[in-house]
């Protein structure tokens, strides 16, 4: 039983990280219609910003995390201005490639800044654990899950209850009609890029204490995040959360009860199976992003 509980919480933790990265991708897609491939670079940059703030600036860890998220929001604005705005009227695949280049640029920036040697970002909870049903669960894991839940709730509220959220949903439904209605597309684009970047930064700061900081640390979570977005039904928050959590749990339980050697294959195998039977994803929505 304790093994099951330990794997459950480690799967939920991974799922929470994938959720945060995936929501950033989905938010942007809803507002702009493009898939942001720079997320992996933003995840790494967010983690390194938190590391810099906690070590070089000497800030307390939570303050360092918050500073990282705030800076990442500004980075998102910069990304929108430089990698997206000039290509707004171009084909989506050009924009996709531009954001992918942006992601690698961020990785290169990290290497120039800190070199490629691994670093360690501390957690406010250190390595402390709490016992749940006989299993030692890291307090940092619970922190990640709770923060993710708050972020999802806040985003859901923002997109369902605020004018900005309604405008984004209108854009996602019919971009041309939304423009004709006077929705400020450019301003929404900047806001959502900032939000998506902040989400990636948050994912990076939460992932940092779990795995060592390396410039390319966001690549693997981004792959899982795309998977979560696709199997959850691209564009649906609830679906994305369900997809991400599913992938995290499949990875951990598959590794724990079938084979650790194939641990990273199980989530993608699950993804392929789901798409084969439900191309629109588990919860409907668009069958694919326009790439």
């Amino acid at each position, binding site marked *: 039983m304790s093994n099951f509980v330990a794997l459950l919480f480690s799967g939920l933790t991974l799922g929470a990280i994938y959720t945060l990265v995936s929501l950033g991708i989905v938010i942007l897609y809803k507002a702009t219609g493009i898939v942001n491939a720079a997320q992996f670079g933003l995840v790494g940059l967010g983690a390194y910003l938190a590391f810099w703030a906690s070590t070089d600036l000497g800030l307390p860890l939570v303050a360092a995390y918050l500073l990282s998220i705030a800076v990442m929001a500004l980075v998102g604005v910069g990304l929108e201005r430089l990698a997206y705005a000039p290509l707004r009227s171009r084909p989506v695949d050009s924009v996709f490639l531009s954001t992918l280049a942006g992601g690698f640029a961020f990785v290169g920036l990290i290497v120039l800044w800190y070199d490629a040697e691994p670093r360690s970002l501390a957690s406010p909870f250190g390595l402390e654990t709490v016992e749940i049903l006989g299993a030692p669960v890291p307090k940092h894991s619970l922190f990640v899950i709770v923060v993710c839940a708050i972020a999802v709730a806040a985003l859901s509220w923002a997109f369902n209850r605020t004018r900005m959220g309604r405008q984004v949903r209108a854009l996602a439904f019919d971009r041309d009609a939304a423009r004709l209605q006077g929705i400020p597309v450019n301003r929404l684009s900047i806001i959502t890029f900032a939000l998506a970047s902040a989400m990636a930064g948050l994912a990076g700061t939460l992932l940092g204490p779990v795995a060592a900081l390396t410039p390319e640390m966001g690549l693997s979570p981004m792959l899982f995040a795309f998977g979560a977005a696709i199997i959850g039904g691209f564009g649906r928050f609830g679906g994305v959360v369900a997809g991400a959590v599913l992938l995290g749990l499949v990875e951990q339980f598959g590794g724990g009860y079938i084979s650790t*050697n194939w641990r990273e294959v199980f989530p993608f195998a699950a993804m392929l199976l789901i798409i084969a039977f439900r191309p629109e994803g588990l919860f409907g929505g668009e069958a694919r992003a326009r790439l």
Partner: protein
Amino acid sequence: MADRFANRKRALKAGVGALLSAIVCAACGNGGGTGTAAEGDGANRPLVLGSVFALTGPQSQAPYVNGVRFAVEEINAAGGVNGQKIELKEYDDALNAQKSASAAQLAVSEGVDVVIGGPTAIQTNAAAPIYQRAGVVHLNMASSTAVAKDESFGGDRTFRVVTPMPEQIHAAAEYLIKEVKVKKVGLLGLNTDFGQNALPLYAEKFQAAGVEVIDSKLYPQDAKDLTNELLAMRGADAIVDWGFPNQFALATKTAYQNGMGDIPHLGPSAVGIVNTLGLVPVENRDSLIGMSSCDPAADTRPHVQEWAKRFQARFDAVADASAASGYDAVQLAKAAVEAAGSLDRAKIAEALTTLTLSQNTMCASTYKSDDRHELMHEAVVISYAKGEPKELARYTAAELAGTGRKQG
């Protein structure tokens, strides 16, 4: 119209002729051969040393690079090799097979005489054949690669600078069996050649000594969670973890969180990097044990301690086993060139098979090639409790040379 055509034809002929002349002149200047620095004496030119490591990619190998640079700087400051300063060329292969091959091709085309590189099988397997075909002397930094003279990536120009992995494993297993007196052990390893080759060797050693192997798990290089793997180690008296620094640190933290923080957690030289980079909190390093060719931080030899201080001052970084090995590799190249009396690569290789180097070495006390072109056969077991490296056991060449080799 006909005149314009004729003019274009003449211009084209002239251009082709000029191009061909340039090619012939370049070939004449090079002295033929492969188009790179030929296998000639090269008496009036400096030794061209190539340093091929990962500076970007999943794992940085900067300590090796800095060790090589430091040696070149100190040798050049003292007058160089045979009166000529070493020309150092550095290449980043990003720990990637394609880039390793490209870096090797570039090094060969730029006339490198001796290359130092290849700490992993990914890098070595891609680059070693290129160096061998080009006749470049290759000083390989990996314990687990098949570069011994009679192995797939070995040859008459390839030499291993660090203690071969089977010998390190023999020493580590001896330590756990005889000193720690384990009865049950868990095995973890990176799911690459490094871990895949090590774990069966460990299992064989332990089982031969009557030690139970509870489980043996391989994990991916980009693992973000090792809960599965550590849960499988429950009940072990010690965990052997043959991976890279990032994953070793993750495994250590996970072991601690799952109530296994007090049992010895033994790994390769990566443990030294975990310690110097602080990848695990100091209070959680009491169980960390590293098996390595050497560790300057725990070395009591006065000249090594002095060197480590100079290295720290130069690079603002702690000198670890990688830096010491990189430094010694350059010393080996220098000694071989001086013994050969020329930059002829065949003579340099021949010199490496016969020389003994004991002076000014920071890792091994003595380098001497065996019949498989393996230059070092020493190992140390280091404790990193409280972040303070301390030597627990030392194994000499007399004890290790030839151990782990399959008989017959």
